[in-house]
């Protein structure tokens, strides 16, 4: 995605060009889906979030100030949609991975055992730690971008990242041992 000319894409979206709309969706939806999936651990919800976030972004494309930040902007929209979803009383819940999703990860997506351990560990973190690790360690965003997505200052991003890494390491050991013992 490094060679994408975001400025021209966004310009085309503002002109409602159907071909550019198609290109933009093709280019962004997979990474956005991945972000949503790691955030909520539910494949169907992740698809719905990705769908709604992209439609919202396309409808409000004139609000995007810096074209190069389109991907970060999309993730910010998706995260806010998830927060709204979780705020509604009926939907507030802890993250429970659907057993079908587990099969989907292991078989369809061919996730390694090591990666599966990481996914399981992410679920055990609180949402603040989880989102910061997803954005920085998995999706490679800069501190500045993460600060914009999460509406934090850079100092807070750095300190939260430090804490999140420590929490992840601590919980990762527990995840690995519980997975091994369940296999035995």
């Amino acid at each position: 995605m490094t060679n994408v000319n975001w400025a021209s894409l966004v310009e085309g979206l503002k002109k409602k060009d159907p071909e550019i709309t198609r290109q933009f969706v093709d280019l962004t939806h997979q990474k956005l889906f991945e972000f949503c999936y790691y955030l909520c651990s539910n494949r169907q919800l992740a698809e719905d979030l990705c769908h709604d976030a992209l439609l919202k972004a396309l409808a409000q494309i004139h609000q995007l100030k810096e074209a190069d930040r389109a991907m970060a902007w999309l993730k910010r929209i998706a995260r806010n949609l998830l927060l709204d979803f979780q705020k509604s009383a009926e939907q507030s819940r802890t993250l429970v991975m659907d057993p079908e999703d587990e099969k989907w990860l292991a078989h369809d997506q061919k996730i390694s055992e090591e990666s599966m351990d990481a996914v399981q560990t992410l679920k055990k973190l609180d949402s603040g730690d989880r989102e910061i690790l997803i954005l920085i360690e998995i999706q490679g965003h800069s501190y500045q971008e993460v600060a914009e997505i999460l509406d934090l200052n850079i100092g807070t991003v750095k300190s939260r990242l430090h804490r999140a890494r420590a929490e992840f390491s601590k919980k990762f050991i527990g995840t690995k041992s519980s997975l091994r013992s369940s296999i035995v």
Partner: protein
Amino acid sequence: MSQYENGKDSLDANVGASKALKSLQEARLSPSPFLAARITAKALAAEPKLGATFGWRAFWAGALASVLLVATSFWVLNRKSQVVEYAVEQPYMLKVDLRSLDPQQISYVVIELQGQPIRFASEKFSEVAEMKSLTLKWENLVGKQYLPLVVKGTSAGDSKVVVHFYDENSGLIMSKDIKLKFSSGNI
């Protein structure tokens, strides 16, 4: 276990955790193969067609201009199942009552002409006569109490004007309609 061994175990665990987390960078999760097509189709279907051709303000100005040149009849489009009789080939202005709607909810409005004998009418933008529906951005209607439409019957028969109000996710909020009967004789 010595302090050194404890520290080494902890370091190994951290390295293992970090490596597992980084392994997700390579794991490419793919959504349903239809997701992109679904999003694109919905995004394109929601595109306001009118905005791409000409501005709403221009259309409104044109519509009003055409109304000033001819005899007009006003009908506030806020009641259902009422049939109004009109003469063919005469432009009429219909006013859609917007007062009861929540402006925060609405993103765009689609006006549909149903039935053969009815057309949009505008002296300035004659091409609207070929269109069976118009999509208008709500932002152009903010602060207005009514949405005026000018229509014309081309032959005797029954028609219906339906106005749909949608939110930003293309969810239908509500619809209003009016049935029109066009007659060739004197009304």
